[in-house]
């Protein structure tokens, strides 16, 4: 059992939790993820590690309520326990001194970008952060990102905060302004369409772009192959070979199709979810 030590509500659907998991906290690196399961009937879902504290033995997760499990998790409070919490899984981000790097976080993707941006900066990189969300209410961790990055650009799709525009608009502007040859690498994490769009921007400039994929998973240790994705014409497992890959090589269309495999069932699970926890399921 893994205790929830802190909970912060960023918006009705985006929440942060600090979970006591010393085994995970001791070894995790930026870019890795955990898999959690809430109860005996629960499914196993992967969540990227957003922060960690080795001394306190804690892992921070930030999640958006999109399915039954994340909704249920969202109703849990500090002091309650998560049944299973396993990690760190996946291959850590490749951190070294590249020069100038751009770290793009879209929506809840800002959370996993944060520890990577911090590590890249600690490794001596000039880190340009770009973070964006649909609207002001969904924005979180601007302060943490500002601290982690050398400079930070913020945008909202609807213009309700700082400026109007997609992260791809900002990305394009920054590359144009600094010159493509001065950007060693771009890291983009967020919803699949956003990562795909970032890759389309950087492909034109020939700037290497790393994305962190969110695929369906069961065990997360390479055992089931559910998370397979085509990268550079080869089948790779997101759980062990990734989650980070060269975005220009990823078959995003296939990833999206496979991700939708259980869409009907996910809907049914939400409808079936008529528990009294007030999470809004079953309506």
């Amino acid at each position, binding site marked *: 059992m893994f205790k929830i030590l802190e909970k912060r509500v960023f918006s009705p659907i985006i929440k942060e939790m600090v979970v006591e998991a010393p085994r995970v906290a001791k070894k995790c690196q930026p870019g890795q993820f955990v898999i959690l399961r809430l109860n005996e009937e629960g499914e196993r879902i992967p969540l990227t590690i957003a922060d960690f504290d080795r001394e306190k033995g804690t892992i921070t997760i930030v999640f958006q309520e999109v399915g039954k499990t994340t909704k249920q998790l969202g109703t849990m409070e500090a002091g309650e326990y998560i049944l299973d919490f396993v990690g760190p899984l996946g291959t850590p981000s490749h951190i070294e001194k590249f020069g100038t790097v751009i770290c793009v976080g879209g929506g809840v993707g800002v959370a996993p970008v944060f520890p990577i941006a911090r590590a890249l900066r600690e490794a001596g990189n000039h880190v340009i952060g770009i973070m964006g969300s649909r609207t002001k209410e969904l924005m979180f961790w601007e302060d943490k990102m500002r601290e982690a990055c050398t400079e930070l650009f913020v945008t909202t799709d609807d213009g309700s905060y700082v400026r109007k525009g997609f992260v791809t608009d900002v990305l394009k502007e920054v590359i144009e302004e600094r010159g493509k040859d001065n950007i060693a690498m771009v890291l983009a994490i967020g919803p699949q369409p956003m990562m795909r769009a970032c890759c389309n921007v950087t492909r034109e400039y020939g700037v290497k772009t790393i994305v962190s994929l969110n695929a369906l998973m069961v065990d997360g240790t390479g055992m089931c192959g559910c998370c397979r*994705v085509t990268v550079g014409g080869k089948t790779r497992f997101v759980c062990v070979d990734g989650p980070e890959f060269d975005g220009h090589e990823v078959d995003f269309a296939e990833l999206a199709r496979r991700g939708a495999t259980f869409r009907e069932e996910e809907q049914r699970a939400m409808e079936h979810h008529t528990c009294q926890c007030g999470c809004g399921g079953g309506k």
Partner: protein
Amino acid sequence: MAEKKEIIPKKHPMPAQDPVARARNFNEVALGYDEETAVAEARRCLQCKKEPCRQGCPVEVYIPQFIKLVAERDFAGAIKKIKEKNALPAVCGRVCPQENQCEKYCTMGKKYEPVAIGRLERFCADWELARGVETPETAPPTGFRVAVVGSGPSGLTCAADLAKKGHDVTIFEALHVAGGVLMYGIPEFRLPKKVVQAEVENLKKLGVHIETNAVVGKFATVDELMEEEGFDAVYIGTGAGLPHFMGIPGENSCGVYSANEFLTRTNLMKAYRFPECDTPIKVGKKVAVLGGGNVAMDAARTALRLGAEESWIVYRRSEKELPARHEEVEHAIEEGVKFALLTSPTEIIADDNGWVKGMKCIKYELGEPDASGRRRPVPIEGSEYEMEVDTVVVAIGQGPNPLVPRTTRGLELGKKGNIVADPETGATSKSGVYAGGDVVTGAATVILAMGAGRVAANSIHEYLMNKKGRN
């Protein structure tokens, strides 16, 4: 000797659920002997002096001896006798390929049907489980700590043996529940999960610690377990947790599962109880399972239970070469699984949304025997045809999961990524580190993995005792 025994030529049949009913439920198929049947079957044993049956058993269970006790109605004595050699009889009695092992060598089998050794083993184990298992005595604590990586059949066996010898054993299991392939792979209808969990509970009574959600190679490497966590020896039994795919076009279409995924969703995550359980699974009307082993049979039978109208085994050799346990093939046929033999797909075809709608297949004929001694399948030119299916399960085998082999310093690996270990001792190239089961041999059987766990436990004990002598 008393009066001459009447010869009963056939095994007493195993009571089983009706095929039509059971093909739609997940309850256990084979129901087990009752006491009278068990005693009657035990009396078929000739008690021959040469004990050929024992030579066919990878762990050399005292077969005639335990059967004699069953015939004498000393069931408690019988299970004790079995357990001298086999730590998991309730499991083995259900899943061992007895026809290729003990029963293959049974003297009765030369003229008649062999004694139903497996069914008797299961009877004894279930008899004991129903009454509560007596915890065996353990040796006084040695002060040594051993880490067992993986809680499948080989890890469970190794841990039990080491605990009995007085060592402090911790099992690290990557999943949220102990049992490995017995939990995620073998279906409920063949091996009820409560049987596995009863065995796991027995292990805990021996003082074995089980840490679930612990992926060795990730939260700590084998080296770190020894250097930082104070383990004196490590046993690696991480199994064959890497699914093989065909490598044909269309394999990443929606509706294509590895057998591992298909079975893990169903068994471990209980997708057959969706939506009461959260994990979904989707089977269409017509399922094709590629492969002919036990895993393939499990998947094909599971597909029917999940509601498929048709479930097909697609296998490139003939029925004779099917590597599955004979009983599994029989059960599959009874339940209505269909067989497309001497057939292999060359491509999986998807619809516009990326969902499987069919397979391009080619017919095979058998040629000369290959390295495995089986006749090599040769494709027949011009025999290509299309098979309409909407779900494909790839069950063509598994390789060793690379997580532990790749993260352990100084561990010699084979060409297929398997750990190289001495079959006589389980010793690897790294001092204090032992390995066994599928991670060494590639996908094999539960009983072989258990045998390897036992062998390694003996070597680890010896290694630790020598270490003590030196200090």
